[in-house]
């Protein structure tokens, strides 16, 4: 292998390991949040909980699907750059970015629509906290995608060198997966 190639390999190894460690830490964070919520809920026989009627679930389900689609878009974008299609990458990132923002908007709507305040009972706080911290992560992801989008325009990425895109994709897919877990936790059980 040429020196450049080895340097690249090392850089990618570093990026991957670092991202994995960060995501592992994040997983414990969200896992702890969910566990705390379940711990409190099990402790309270009269726990006030959203009743998951189909009508009640429309908005959350829409939000969820938006996020899932965005994850798809990012993944396709990364595939595209691997094939060398800058346009494909840009399209994927842009789409995901917009959908991400839509999702956050939807979440805000969802929270305000069910008329709960952080302060009413424990569940209000749980609902607010879980959705809130997740939304913050989505926003962080949006920033990440934004940067990658700009760099795509600047032509920073090539089929051989686009580790930043890959990392962005990992993060975005991860955040989507976390929401799926929270969706189950908050609405279905």
């Amino acid at each position: 292998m040429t020196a450049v190639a080895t340097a690249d390999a090392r850089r990618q190894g570093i990026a991957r390991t670092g991202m994995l460690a960060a995501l592992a830490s994040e997983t414990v964070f969200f896992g702890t949040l969910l566990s705390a919520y379940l711990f409190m809920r099990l402790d309270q026989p009269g726990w006030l909980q959203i009743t998951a009627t189909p009508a009640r679930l429309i908005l959350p389900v829409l939000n969820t699907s938006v996020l899932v689609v965005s994850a798809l878009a990012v993944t396709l974008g990364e595939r595209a750059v691997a094939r060398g299609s800058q346009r494909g990458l840009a399209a994927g990132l842009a789409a995901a970015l917009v959908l991400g923002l839509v999702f956050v908007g939807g979440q805000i709507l969802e929270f305000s629509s069910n008329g709960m305040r952080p302060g009413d009972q424990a569940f209000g706080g749980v609902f607010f906290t879980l959705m809130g911290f997740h939304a913050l992560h989505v926003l962080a992801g949006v920033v990440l995608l934004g940067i990658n989008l700009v760099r795509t325009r600047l032509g920073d990425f090539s089929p051989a060198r686009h580790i930043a895109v890959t990392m962005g994709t990992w993060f975005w897919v991860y955040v989507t997966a976390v929401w799926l877990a929270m969706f189950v936790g908050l609405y279905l059980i």
Partner: protein
Amino acid sequence: MPADAHALTHARPTPASPGRPGLLGWLSTVDHKRIGVLYLGSGLLFFLLGGLEALLIRLQLARPGETLLGPDIYNQIFTMHGTTMIFLGVMPLAAGFGNYLIPLMLGARDVAFPKLNALSYWVFLFAGLLMNSSFVFGGAPSTGWFAYAPLTERAFSPGTGVDFWILGVLLLGLSTTLGSINFIVTILQLRAPGMSLNRMPMFAWTMLVTSMIAVFALPSLTVAILLLLLDRQLGTHFYNVAQGGDALLWQHLFWFFGHPEVYILILPAMGMVSEIIPVFSRKPLFGYRVVAYSSVAIGFLGFTVWAHHMFATGLPSAALLVFSADSFLIGVPTGVKVFSWLATMWRGRLRLTTAMLFAIGFIALFVIGGLGGVSLAVVPVDWQLTDTYYVVSHFHYVLFGGSVFAILGAAYYWFPKMTGRRLGEGLGKLHFWLTFVGMNLVFMPMHILGLLGMPRRIYTYAAGKGWEGWNMIATIGAFVVALSMLVFVVNLIRSLRRPPTHEADPWDANTLEWTTASPPLAYNFAEIPTVRSARPYWDAKHPDLADWKARR
């Protein structure tokens, strides 16, 4: 092989200062060595501050009914003493040695994320200053370093102290997480050719495990604290029983972090000792793989025992038994380490330098702390002794007799590498003996005070309970320790005043950091050697006795 010997013994370029000179150079540095030095310097300052707080505590408790500090000030002082020593003293000092040494030990040119590294240092410094600034702005936190809810809720702690504490600890958690990710990636990705994980210096191993523990334990603390923040600022009710919250939730979340935290504090120290003892015994670390494994096992078990801090909270007794059992189990890998160190010294050729004295002191005192810990894993005994001075004594034998002794030993051992000068051995020996005698004077009486029924965290006590004498001894001891630290500071300054000798390998040591200049070059190594065992430099200096030739 000869190629390596050449690489190792002759690659000794003259020292060059890493990065730009002057203050600006230090502020803007991303060089792991300079960041390491920054961590060590700040850590030492905070450590001395925490020491002063300890002196105040001891003065207040020296005599019954003392009125030097009121309850308000006293509670602030002991809270900040604990928080400072743990988050701003021991952890940064360990991080400092890690930053400075890990790349050198691995044969790397820098850490994986130099900028991130700088960031985590500055975040740490800011958090430390922020927390301590609370003394001036409306009073420091006064709820103890484990800040039990609901005492920390608005209703019971209306002041801003707790908010300072929350912000400070949140930032420190962030800083530590970033630093740990940096260590993990550096250790997993940037090792010299041939240095497989099972040939790493033991300090690198313990730093790896420590960082893993930090990455997986800290989020729990972060969650606990964020929920508290929301309770205080947004009126949520996570810890508010009246509104469907749960008071014990805090304890579960906190100790899920809090117990692993103990190993975050002690494992790097064990790594340092595992580096120092072989060098000054002229023998390899006895049972390298078992010592390495015991760290992993401790990391494993550390996550399963948090409720042994909650034996008195009324958990069902079956649960208590299970946690007790796991706590006992942790004693085993710990014991294995101790015996391995003794076996390393056995029939060696001991050179009792100050560094070695502190390492031996570590074993002697850590054993006391460990045995105290075992006695606290015995549930009925814990019911009597938890939250008494017996516990205070136990964890000070672990954290002072353990962590701090190792860190001081490490200071004497690696100071020459960092500065090109040795620390004075005469003052060093004085420093050691004062610390050793002093710490036993402080903490051994505390075992007895606990047995005599003195709870921790009381700002005063009535006469006639047989507590006075022991408290007085402890206070005297505290001042002996303070004196010893003064000697250390003097020693540091005097040694730094002397002209550097630039000995690359003053102790005839085994690991890669000694193969390069003292202080090392900006880029650490002229050429990166190939490693064939856990003691590459030994192999190079003793081709006939090389470890990679020996079968155990």
